């Protein structure tokens, strides 16, 4: 049987599936290469499988249950939307659906905390209080190529690329605002230790 994808592989169709669209059953026959290209075998891709599973879920969950479901207030994305697509609706969804996210991330990644590049604005984030956070003037944008722009006095001593120290400071800010003073004290000591050692300069 020929592959329906109008392809050049010269392979017989070996993957067959049907789905329902507008009350019509649509049958598709693909060769293994096209099936692979179209992500039919790939559960994580944008795929026909996603589409089909999504359709299945919609009918089983129904509209009534949707009303009671956890929903992102910013973009209207729901928990079952995530189950369907494996993707979130907007950046805020990460806060809204934070419960259970940790386990998911643990399964996916090495770690559940970011290490690596940080955008320029994040350097001025929680460690400094909001009131002091300066708005970057236009001239700042033109500044000669400082690899990582550091604006505030308080942060000038932080060496370029010292992400771990940066992360600790951010955590400290977060701990203080969450009034978790025990954690804050621990972080403060950790930061002091790092800053006095060579670690901070690496």
């Amino acid at each position, binding site marked *: 049987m020929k592959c329906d994808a*109008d*392809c*050049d*592989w*010269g*392979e017989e169709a070996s993957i067959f599936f049907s789905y329902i669209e507008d009350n019509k059953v649509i049958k598709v026959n693909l060769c*293994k*290469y096209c099936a*692979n*290209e*179209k992500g039919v*075998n790939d559960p*994580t*891709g*944008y795929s026909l499988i996603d589409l089909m599973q999504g359709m299945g879920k919609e009918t089983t969950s129904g509209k009534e249950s949707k009303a009671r479901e956890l929903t992102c207030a*910013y*973009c209207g*994305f729901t928990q079952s*939307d995530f189950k369907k*697509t*494996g*993707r*979130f*609706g*907007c*950046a805020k969804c*990460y806060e809204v659906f934070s419960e259970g*996210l940790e386990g*998911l*991330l643990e399964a*996916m*990644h*090495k*770690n*559940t*905390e*970011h*290490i*690596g*590049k*940080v*955008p*320029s*604005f*994040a350097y001025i*984030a*929680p460690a400094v209080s909001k009131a002091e956070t300066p708005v970057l003037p236009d001239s700042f*944008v033109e500044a000669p190529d400082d*690899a*990582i722009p550091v604006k505030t006095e308080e942060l000038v001593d932080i060496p370029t690329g010292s*992400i771990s120290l940066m*992360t600790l400071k*951010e*955590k400290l800010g*977060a701990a203080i605002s969450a009034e978790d003073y025990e954690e804050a004290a621990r972080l403060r000591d950790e930061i002091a230790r790092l800053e006095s050692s060579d670690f901070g300069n690496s």
Partner: protein
Amino acid sequence: MRFSTLLKNPAEWMRTSGPRNDIVITSRVRLARNLRNHPFPGWAESAARTKVMNIIRPVLEDLDEMKNAFSEEMVDLTAIEKQVLVERHLVSREHAAKGPGCATVMNRSQTISIMVNEEDHLRMQSIRPGLQLLSAFKSLNTIDTDLDKHLDYAFDTRYGYLTACPTNLGTGMRASAMLHLPGLVLSEQINGTIQGANRIGLAVRGLYGEGTEALANLFQISNQTTLGTSEEDVIKHLGKVIDRVIENEQNARLKMIEDKPAMMQDQIGRAFATLKFAHIIPSKEALNCLSMIRLGCDLGFFPEEDREMINILLTEIQPAHLQISAKRKLTPEERDNLRADIVRSKLKALTPPDFGSILKKSENKNDEEV
């Protein structure tokens, strides 16, 4: 830059060579970024997507790197034009299928291409010939740092860059290399290599097809995780693994020349004959034959300069490239025919493989055994 200009010039990675080009065809790095206060493209309505595109596109076009860039909204390209971009690895298959509000911006040398509103608001890619992961990353990183001054990125101190799919969370970086591994495939060591890489958190995929079925013996190796390891460490780790794979591939090739010289000569000789004389050739057969000719170049059976021609052919025999060169839509049968014509004409000057001195030693040994 117009589409026709882009088309006339093969991408820089096809024309120039890079370190370890015998085994590593290209190195690619991509970064995923999103804007803070806008829904992700997959969830956004068409109007919201267009709004995001209108914020991002002018900023991209203003980049130094993007002087005289190619910049198009996907709906303004024909199906075949979009397919050409896919075949050149400049946009993803998913992006090519997108509707209004999705755009692609790329520089003249086709080394940097940026998809607007693919799965994330921004998907930026840097591609280089040979093994150059770090320099691919650095050039992309500079662009990202520039963009960061003008765009309000979605970033979380704990989770890093926020992406539509949690598998990209953190650095949003995927680094990958396209490797040509005929030695490991012919010696049946490829599955072991794939499993080994998987165990240490790397993904290996056939460029077309999977596992030993991979066509043209082309494989892509990339990092799987993005959260909890810095960009540099991911690239260092990946680079080390690639060095090992290169070493294994070279050993496999040498061992085959020694143990099975007749099989090697047969495979390369048949590929030569097929490509030189076929008048109807499907993609699968053409890709596999080209892979054998490339191996022949690496082993000195063909002049090394011919490798570049093979790189170009790997792209030019793909369906959309064929139809662009024919200036009309072709049926699969017509494409198989045109493909054979193009291959024959491009390889006109290719002389038969010179197995000569390289195989002599092992042949003598075999003769004695007989």
